[in-house]
């Protein structure tokens, strides 16, 4: 633990990245306490305003406070996943998307790498075909087909992420399955599931975790893009991408703020995650 922190703070890029990410994590955690309006609370007398003392970042076309919407938007990305209007589960939408991709990808990769033969051939050809489809097309078709909701965004992120994870896990499995402890488990007569998930997977976790960190960045990127295309969370939930799309219509009317702030938010969070992952990777390579 201490070692990780040393690596982290010896890299300037990683530190900056960490500060950006932590900023948004705290904003998301504390959203109800650091905002004085609700994210859907409308003030008809003050629509399309620039920053002021009452509204630090301004208001959108319905007079909703942009700072509050931004903070609650961070919550949806990082902290909670709304299932229906009333019900939500902990863990951000982007996080759940990555977890689902890891689960599907790891299962396919493990089976494919461990079994080999025709199972491997079929799974890998199928994933190759999936990988060759433009990512945006997959997102478009999946979400347009399933309808726009947090659960469907998670499904889309998982489907798009699965082939990449599966490839990584497969290559790791091919290496690990020749080790003695896997042989020992086979000789003991352990079940297939036990060997895959208790023997092979824990020993492949290092590279998978680094990959997962980058994937959270992609997932946030994807969430924003889907929201921007009108395929994200249904209104009136404070989704960054849809805020940009809505705010874009009011630039010409003289209110650039409604589209500027969510764009900045999503850019800073994604850049932060990438700086963090990049810096960590560079520093840990130097240590080795």
């Amino acid at each position, binding site marked *: 633990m201490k070692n990780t922190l040393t690596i982290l703070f010896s890299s300037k890029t990683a530190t900056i990245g960490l500060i950006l990410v932590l900023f948004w994590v705290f904003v998301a955690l504390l959203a109800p306490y650091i905002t004085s309006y609700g994210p859907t609370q409308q003030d008809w007398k003050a629509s399309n305003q620039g920053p002021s003392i009452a509204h630090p970042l301004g208001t959108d076309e319905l007079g909703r406070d942009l700072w509050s919407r931004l903070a609650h938007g961070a919550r949806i990305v990082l902290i909670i996943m709304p299932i229906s209007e009333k019900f939500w589960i902990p863990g951000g939408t982007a996080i759940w998307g990555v977890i689902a991709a890891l689960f599907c990808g790891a299962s396919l990769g493990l089976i494919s790498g461990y079994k080999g033969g025709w199972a491997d051939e079929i799974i890998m050809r199928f994933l*190759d075909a999936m990988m060759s489809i433009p990512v945006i097309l997959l997102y478009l078709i999946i979400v347009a087909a399933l*309808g726009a909701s947090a659960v469907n965004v998670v499904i889309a992120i998982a489907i798009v992420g699965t082939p990449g994870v599966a490839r990584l896990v497969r290559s790791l499995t091919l290496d690990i399955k020749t080790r003695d402890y896997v042989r020992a488990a086979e000789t003991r007569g352990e079940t297939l599931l036990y060997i895959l998930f208790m023997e092979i997977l824990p020993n492949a976790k290092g590279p998978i975790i680094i990959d997962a960190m980058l994937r959270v960045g992609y997932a946030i990127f994807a969430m924003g*893009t889907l929201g921007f295309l009108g395929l994200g969370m249904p209104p009136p939930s404070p989704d960054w991408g849809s805020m940009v799309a809505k705010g874009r219509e009011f630039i010409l009317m003289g209110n650039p703020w409604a589209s500027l702030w969510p764009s900045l938010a999503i*850019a800073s969070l*994604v850049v932060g995650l990438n700086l963090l992952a990049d810096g960590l990777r560079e520093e840990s390579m130097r240590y080795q």
Partner: protein
Amino acid sequence: MAKFIIRRFFLLLLTMFLVSIAVFMIVESSPGNIAKNVLGAFITPEQEASFLAQQGLDKPLLQRYWFWLLGSDRAAERKCGFKLERIETEAGFQEWWAKGENSTLMRWSLEGDDLIVQTKTPDNTIETAKDNERWKKAEDGSYIFWGVDRNNHAVLWVKGASNEVWNFVVGTGWIKSSGGPQSYIPLKKGFLRGDFGVSLRTGRPVEKSLFIRLRNSVVLAGIAFVVVMPLALLLGMAAGIREGSLQDRFLSIAGMVFSVIPEFATGIFLILIMSHWLELVPGASVFGEKAPWQRPDMLILPVLTLTLIELGYVLRITRASMAEVMRSAYIRTAFLKGLPFWQVIFRHAAKNALIAPITVIMLHVNWLMGGIVIVEVVFGYPGLGQYLLDSALYKDVNAIEAGTMIMVLLAVGTQLFADVLYTLLNPRIRYS
């Protein structure tokens, strides 16, 4: 090598086949209703049923996929016993006719119990006449006739049992008419024979709008490509010459930052800065009927957005490749034997450092497409991506299929091209 290319080619076909099936099934299972999308939310169930039957959407999924892939004219020919022919009128519309004896073209309609035939002779004169001899007696005693109607369907008429038909005419509204057939087969040649079908959203053949959209997208991508490549390769080499130097760190981090920011955010920043605050260039690309190159000022911001996004990616790959080459023994030798700095860089290093980036760039087309879709939406640019998005939201299955097939073909095709190019650039690689 030939074996490798053939194998990859079949993989391409397989991918397209699987994707086309997947798209069909996904569109099928998705929420929403194409009849309501086309005709509005207030249609009656009879109107909806009539519309679905006329579009052939009441048929089973497998049959619809088959008709989409290979065409429905053969199946229709077996039913009605005529040769069917598609002609293009002078006004540019596609019409299906049945080919009768001595090569006259025929179409029918039903008025009361009378079949009315419309004949078209080779010199383009059209005559109408009663044609009641065509009724055939069916097993249950009713008289039936399979023919071609005036709206490009093969249809089954039953004497005395004319259904009500609802037709929506733009500008007039709903027209209810009798003389309706019992069953419709919309006539088309099928995707494999070059007919992409009719877009339900526009009511026109898909290929008429699709290829203009594709051309616009290719223009945008082409200009961006020409701007990005030399710049990115040059900057990447500049960064890779001395690893860890100030210019290396600056270029790498700037490149990374621009390449991970979502396209729409970059686009919004540029619109706000260049168009809203500085008022230098237009912030949208609305061409109307014009071609993109007739309004070059509207292309500036979309191209700039794509450039910023793509620059970072290519720059980083070139930098890594260049840095690796600069560490190699033959570069050190070149320096030690006293060759001038720039000669070593351009003659010895650049040549070897550029192999990897050039092929990786081809693989990157996949991502570039994503960028283009978003950029088109941000700037309202009338390209393929926007077309696909609109079609997907509308459940316009023919348009989605055609757009998807083109995108997959482009993506997988460039990947294949990259592999071939790589063997040409680097003769040490052998595929087997």
